[in-house]
């Protein structure tokens, strides 16, 4: 893939065309109670072409990146577009010209570790747990590494290449109470390769100590009280709130599909404390977890302000939706695998920090919950969201109380965000997040701690 020059193939383009070659690699090592239950690697790669002709899209992909394979996908994509165009006859006009030339790599420059060294690192982490913490019923240590390498040329003259790695180490510990399993997990990592992110095991040990402390508290946890409650959402929950509650409703394809956000542009949809942006690659001077410099339509990626001090400002776009709304494309068209077509996707969606301290926020709650970690989440066209909360604590008279059992929180985003009264002055990115809209793709999510009202599941 490194040496392949796609530019000569642009001579074969007849209509608006994107030609992409891509390789995704994934490696995983998992120890479960000391057993190496996963020691695997997967590589997928190939070529794809997407052609827009007479208002219809044709797409084709194959794993052969020889000139024969690339010629085949270009031909098949064109034929597929023609098949639809001959039947659908949609009105169309050419997309406005927009091109970018960029090449960025986040690959390590350090010597690459061998598989044996990586397994050794994971075993060392597992050894720390077994040595220090007796009485656990189960433990998982999982090291995962993803690399996404893409090259793209388009008929509008874009030439883009990127290599974006992600490495995470997940620790999951379990114990029992009255024969009922209880578990807590956490992770370290994000953008980068192992060699750059895990220079020593000490930060992992600190995380393990914290996971164990929460596990012991959760073992004696209680059910949350079902219903509406005042809550402080920890910084790591702000990201999923930004992604699920607002982000999805402001993807332009979902707006066209009936999302309620379409009716509220330039209206107050949140507390004036709330500003929410989908960052392309850099936020507050730092590289984001999933930096996107050019999207898979060859559009230069730029930040998209979704909510500015409580006012809904706009949507995330690909070329086609931007044309519909008569705005510039934002560089949000992303494909997960080489065989996937670009869809409007979030990149690094975050609520910006405020001026409060987390301790003061907790102290200001008479009775409610401090919710720390999230699991899966889901959005809706109504802006009603939900996500799982596997770790949290009661707040009683401004102080943390008992841990709570796993729960789910929900709310209608455009109502709930109006209840935000405090935002902490720090910012936390989740560099392990994925989004599952048709294709599973890496995203970044971030934000500060948030004080607000949400509905909890419980008893």
């Amino acid at each position: 893939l490194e040496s392949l020059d796609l530019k000569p193939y642009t001579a074969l383009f007849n209509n608006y065309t994107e030609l992409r070659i891509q390789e995704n690699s994934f490696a995983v090592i998992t120890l479960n109670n000391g057993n190496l239950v996963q020691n695997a690697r997967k590589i997928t790669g190939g070529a794809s072409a997407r052609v827009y002709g007479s208002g219809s899209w044709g797409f084709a992909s194959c794993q052969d990146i020889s000139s024969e394979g690339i010629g085949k996908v270009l031909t098949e994509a064109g034929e597929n577009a023609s098949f639809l165009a001959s039947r659908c006859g949609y009105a169309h006009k050419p997309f406005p010209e927009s091109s970018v030339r960029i090449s960025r790599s986040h690959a390590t420059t350090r010597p690459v570790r061998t598989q044996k060294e990586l397994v050794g690192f994971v075993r060392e982490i597992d050894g720390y747990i077994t040595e220090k913490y007796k009485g656990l019923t189960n433990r998982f240590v999982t090291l995962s590494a993803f690399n996404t390498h893409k090259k793209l040329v388009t008929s509008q003259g874009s030439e883009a290449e990127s290599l974006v790695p992600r490495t995470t180490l997940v620790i999951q510990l379990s114990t029992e109470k009255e024969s009922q399993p209880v578990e807590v997990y956490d992770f370290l990592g994000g953008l980068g390769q192992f060699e750059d992110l895990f220079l020593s095991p000490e930060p992992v040990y600190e995380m393990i100590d914290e996971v164990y402390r929460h596990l012991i508290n959760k073992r004696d946890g209680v059910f949350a009280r079902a219903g509406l409650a005042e809550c402080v959402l920890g910084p790591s929950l702000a990201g999923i709130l930004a992604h699920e509650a607002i982000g999805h409703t402001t993807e332009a394809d979902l707006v066209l599909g009936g999302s309620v956000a379409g009716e509220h542009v330039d209206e107050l949809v949140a507390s004036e404390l709330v500003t929410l942006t989908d960052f392309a690659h850099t936020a507050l001077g730092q590289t984001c977890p999933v930096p996107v410099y050019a999207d898979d339509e060859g559009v230069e990626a730029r930040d998209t302000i979704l909510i500015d001090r409580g006012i809904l400002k706009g949507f995330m776009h690909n070329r086609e939706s931007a044309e519909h709304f008569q705005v510039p494309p934002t560089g949000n068209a992303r494909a997960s695998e080489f065989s996937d077509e670009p869809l409007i996707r979030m990149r690094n969606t975050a609520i910006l920090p405020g001026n409060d301290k987390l301790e003061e926020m907790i102290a200001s709650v008479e009775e409610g919950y401090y919710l720390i970690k999230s699991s899966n989440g889901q959005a809706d066209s109504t802006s009603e969201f939900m996500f799982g909360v596997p770790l949290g604590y009661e707040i009683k008279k401004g102080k943390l109380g008992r841990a709570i059992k796993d729960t789910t929180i929900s709310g209608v985003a455009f109502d709930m965000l109006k209840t935000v009264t405090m935002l902490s002055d720090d910012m936390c990115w989740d560099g392990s997040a994925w989004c599952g809209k048709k294709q599973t793709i890496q995203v970044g999510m971030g934000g500060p701690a948030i004080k607000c009202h949400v509905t909890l599941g419980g008893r």
Partner: protein
Amino acid sequence: MEPKETALYARDALLRAGADKSQVMLTRSIRDELYVENGKIALNRTTHNHEIKYKAIRDRKQGLTMAGRIDKTSIDSEAIQVMELAGAAVADEARDIAEYQEPAVFADGPEGSDKVKMYARLREFLDQAGEKHPDTIIENGGIVFNQTEVSLVNSNGVDFASRTSHYEFFAIFTTKKDKLSSSMNYTGCVLADPDVELMKTVLTERLLEQSAGQTKLRALEGKFTGDIIMTPDCLGDFYRFLIKPLYDNFLIGGTSIYKDKLNKPITDKRITLHSRPVGDEMAGRDYIGPDGYVLKNNTIIDKGILTGFLTSQYGALKTGFPRAGNLGTHPVFEPGDSSLDEMIKSVRRGLLLCRFSGGDPSYGGDFSGVAKNSYYIENGMIQYPVSEVMVSGNIPDMLNNLNSISAERINFGTSLMPWMSFGGVTVSGK
């Protein structure tokens, strides 16, 4: 090279690279898709994929990789990589490949797609939906043809091949009226032939009608303990939560709530659950499992008794439980004897739960989530569609608190689901 020739070459490449045992699964697939975006057939996509899954064992250490390149040079190079992984592994007596079984070839479904029919039936569906429900938007949807060829060989003499194909239909929709949006809802099924009226498949027509009436919702005040009737679509989504504790991860780690329950009651005795990947009633069948064994239909719960875990070959050798004949796919619940009307009439307070949007249940089975596209039931009558209502409970408790199962079931092509009514669930509003 032909698929089998390639698979044999890869198997032997692993042995040449030093493996004691080798197993290779080559998959070659073609996917033709007509994709709908916001009511328009917007994309015509064709993908050609192939993938080789390499498994090598040396000194009871395993290396496992998956890669897409199938030329001899790439296979030789990959074999060395697999052995590097095996060399880095920890010896484990439970690592093995499939035992010898009689060679077999399986074939199912048409060869190649009929895109003209696919288009015609999809166009018909969109026209019908637009005519009957002009305020309902088919956000995404489509019809997809999948054809998959598998060749699985190993150094114990296993030699299987299959060619399967089927069509998939799916629709995700939202209604927007007077600036109000419904919750999105979705459905879909697997079909042997695309030449059917898609609106009449599974519960598509009923769900679209429901969506059209779900822009004006009512919130519930307070909370109560009551009944939920899960629809077949909802039960299909919830199924993965029900069977999660039966898999390797939970059994090897000892965190499965059912680890001591084999051949013991775990649900109400009216519940019988099968997994039927090669069932005659399934439009989308699977024949070869990833472990290298031919898949078989089996029963997971028989009249409330847990009759088997969903253990892989590794999980079985690790835990001592029998290896499952399949992976728990293609679920089939035995029917009950109630009509849906009777089930609703018997509810004093509760919900018709049409979609569940919830967090992953705890290891102990505690769950909570939002009741989407759902209806409040009081005194045996459906009252109104609800908003911002959560349901909470415990899965093992719920399965023992069964009210009834419908006689009617819906065949989704890879599952057969009834309506099921459970008691003792917490329903909470604002």
